[in-house]
């Protein structure tokens, strides 16, 4: 697996920790999927006086890498404040940076994102920016010091899958050496497999698992899909073509006139 700021992950599945019916079911989802990264969003209100610590303890006890998230932040200032709080609470330099620019689609504000990424990398954070498939923005995020990019598949929580496969493929081709994670919009394991087959290094999802009728079973299904897609990408898939090519030789075969 690819290196994420010096950490090699044992698989390409990152899971969110919100919206599960209960923390116990969330723990089960992590166990059955062997997901190796847990994202956790901090509400400023619970960060301030450590009132969320009982829940955070459950996340720490998962024994996976914790990737705190600035979810729901609408400005650079808010995102930076939340990142600092997260570093203090979880003792990690990792931060998943979200700066939301559009309330309905929760689309990232890419201008604020680049600015916040620069501020945070200068401050020693290792930033995982939630961005679009825009190549120019991707380049600016790398200039700002990001060593990982997280393009969206589709709007957060929509379950629409990979909305723009062309754009995502071209992003993969433009940045062959940058770890790329499909973040947001996945609804089904097949979509996660598709992302991995396209050569992405990991997928990050939450709603598709947490809101499934059986979250732990769905987490396991995603883990299987991520594994399949990863193997397939490494196995150099065949090229599609228009004409039929029989897999058994026809030469010398008897045929009727």
């Amino acid at each position, binding site marked *: 697996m690819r290196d994420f700021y010096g950490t090699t992950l044992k698989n390409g599945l990152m899971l969110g920790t919100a919206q599960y*019916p*209960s*923390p*116990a*079911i969330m*723990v089960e989802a992590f166990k059955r999927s062997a997901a190796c990264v847990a994202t956790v969003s901090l*509400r400023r*209100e*619970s960060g301030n*006086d450590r*009132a*969320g*610590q*009982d*829940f955070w303890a*459950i996340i720490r006890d998962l024994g996976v890498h914790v990737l705190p998230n600035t979810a729901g932040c609408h400005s650079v200032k808010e995102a930076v404040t939340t990142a600092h709080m997260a570093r203090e609470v979880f003792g990690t330099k990792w931060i998943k940076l979200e700066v939301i620019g559009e309330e309905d689609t929760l689309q990232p504000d890419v201008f604020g994102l680049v600015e916040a990424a620069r501020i945070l990398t200068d401050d020693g954070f290792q930033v995982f920016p939630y961005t679009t498939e825009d190549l120019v923005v991707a380049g600016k995020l790398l200039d700002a010091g990001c060593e990982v990019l997280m393009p969206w598949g589709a709007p957060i*929580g929509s379950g629409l899958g990979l909305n723009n496969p062309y754009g995502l493929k071209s992003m993969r081709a433009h940045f062959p050496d940058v770890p790329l994670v499909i973040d947001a919009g996945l609804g089904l394991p097949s979509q996660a497999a598709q992302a991995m087959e396209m050569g992405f290094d990991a997928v990050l999802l939450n709603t598709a698992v947490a*809101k499934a*009728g059986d979250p732990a079973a769905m987490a396991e299904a995603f883990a299987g899909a991520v594994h399949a897609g990863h193997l397939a990408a490494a196995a150099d898939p065949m090229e599609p073509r228009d004409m039929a090519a029989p897999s058994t030789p026809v030469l010398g075969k008897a045929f009727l006139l």
Partner: protein
Amino acid sequence: MMQISIIGGGVAGLCVARVLRDRGADVLVVDRHDGIGPHACSWWAGGMLAPFCEGESAEEPVVRLGQEAADWWQVKTDAVNRCGTLVVSPARDKAELSRFGRRTSHFETVSGAEVEALEPDLAGRFNTGLFFKDEAHLSPRLALGRLRDGLVADGVTFKTEDADPKLYTREGLTVDCRGFAARDTINDLRGVKGEILILSCKDVVLNRPVRLLHPRIPLYVVPRGDGIFMLGATMIESSQKTHVTARSLLELLSAAYALNPAFGEAEVLEIGVDARPAFPDNLPRIRRDGNLICANGLFRHGFLLAPAMARMVAEMIFDNTKPEMMDETSA
């Protein structure tokens, strides 16, 4: 006569007291506050007795055990309204409604006209909904008040003291019903913050609790009668129970406005906040260590599950049965 002390006078403590008294025990209820009031989580509850709706996210025992609640409360307090629950969603979030229907049972799908027949003030706003006709609701403050009055009338003693349940075990059997306040002795208990609003709005009449589904901000409105409504409730993984954020108020009020814009003119009467006591699976627990019994973790199901929990505590004490809510960490 068996003497039993109950520490905590919220919905859990009062229900346990009622059932133990009914089974002939000599009961003492100790709470650090005098009487029921805003210091108890249950003061701010919705009071929905909606076991089938809760099945959307809760596990099977909540649905099953919650079905005891409406009859129990009716017998003990005569405060139950049996008008069902109506679940609706904005047109663009229809997927939420079909998801809710897949996860629950005991409802009928109703048309826009039927929504209007049930709730005239929602006319023209929703073209489909789910109606859970067997569900009920009550006014928590009225029900708790009547429960307490009934206990006093039956000779139960109430004492105001910030008690340590362990010390009381020297006197005899003690049931710790302190809710989140028992966090000091129960390590796997956590708080789940909830914020609620109480509004007065004479322009809206609702006959039953209405749940508005939304992928980000689900809301329920419970009519209390006389134009009073309870709006709830946020669910935040936090034990913080003193501050209500502007964001939460904004979300609750926006959702109420989406239900009926007339809520925009409502008068805000009360803003409430507390931490629901919950175990990791959000199911209640009964634990026993010698003379000390802990009954806790009612989460968002205080009024729904306290009667069943109280029954199990009593069965454990009087019939020597092992309650299904007892887990392996019990001594």
